[in-house]
């Protein structure tokens, strides 16, 4: 019931609207009630409305408005990239991206694989069914 993810300096957030959609950024300062100063290794530090951000569980240890170098070092130290990509949220996003980029041939191969898997599962199931009914 209580809040678990707070807006604080060092909070990693996901951009959910706008030019930088889908990027992970770090809240580096709070400007006012609605906006934060936000920074990421591959973008110019700039302001963003909180409504454009979705907070994640990850937080890094930085002081208010660090240099780009310090920020990148802190991100490395906290291993944000791997933590994100191994979290279930991060993994879901990766799968979504992969699905969206599938070729027509890839989709065909996936269909064949799904049919094969279903066949194997059904065989096992029928084996189990036979055991229990007999």
């Amino acid at each position, binding site marked *: 019931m209580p809040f678990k993810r707070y807006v604080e300096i060092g909070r990693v957030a996901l951009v959910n609207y706008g030019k930088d959609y889908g990027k992970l950024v770090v809240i580096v300062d709070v400007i006012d009630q609605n906006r934060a100063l936000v920074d990421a290794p591959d973008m110019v530090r700039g302001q963003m409305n909180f409504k454009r951000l979705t907070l994640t569980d990850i937080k890094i240890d930085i002081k208010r408005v660090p240099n780009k170098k310090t920020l990148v070092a802190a991100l490395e130290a906290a291993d944000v990239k791997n933590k994100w990509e191994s979290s279930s949220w991060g993994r879901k996003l990766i799968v979504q991206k992969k699905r*969206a980029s599938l070729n*027509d041939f890839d989709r065909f191969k996936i269909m064949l694989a799904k049919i094969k898997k279903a066949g194997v599962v059904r065989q096992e199931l029928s084996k189990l069914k036979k055991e229990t009914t007999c």
Partner: protein
Amino acid sequence: MAPKDRKPHVSRNPDLIRGVGKYSRSKMYHKRGLWAIKAKNGGTFPKHEKKAAEAAPAEKPPKFYPADDVKKPLVNKRKARPTKLRASITPGTVLIILAGRFKGKRVVFLKQLTSGLLLVTGPFKINGVPLRRVNQSYVIATSTKVDISGVNVEKFDDKYFGKKVEKKKKKGEGEFFEAEKEEKNTLPQDKKDDQKTVDAALIASIEAVPDLKSYLGARFSLKAGMKPHELVF
């Protein structure tokens, strides 16, 4: 006159703003060294001799002048070219045909003919599409490519696919007509052989890729949840 390797010449007069150069006419005259060229040549600019103009062949006056002035048609310098081929379509690309008898079939692109149409083949053994012409607009290009280096498509052009001109025969009664029709409906053997030679090399390179043969044998269709504007082909 210039040796072939000349670099394109950059202007000696930088633009201050588009249309306004930094240097005036007299300054540019000096910069280009026209004074030095003239000095070398004794005060005037070097000239070549004009070629003696050839005497134009004597024209006879026309026999007939129209009563009213006849308008000359406007000059048209356009050249007939085959349709511009989409960058995504290269020889060996797998295409999805969208209309006609073979709609939904995935087919291999061979080359673009001079009429602009695309020459395409199933291969016939895999999905029943023969060597055929298809319009670029009725085709989706996928990013899957097949190795087409072993195939020789030089001999195919638009005339190969044109309708055969029938020799005019005398109008016969019912029986004669039917006999003629039956002859024409079968494909000539040399076309069948062409199909076989083209497909032989293609099928070999298709079988090298796993699942590609069944992919080409299957038709494409939109299923639930597929949004064509979001699909990557």
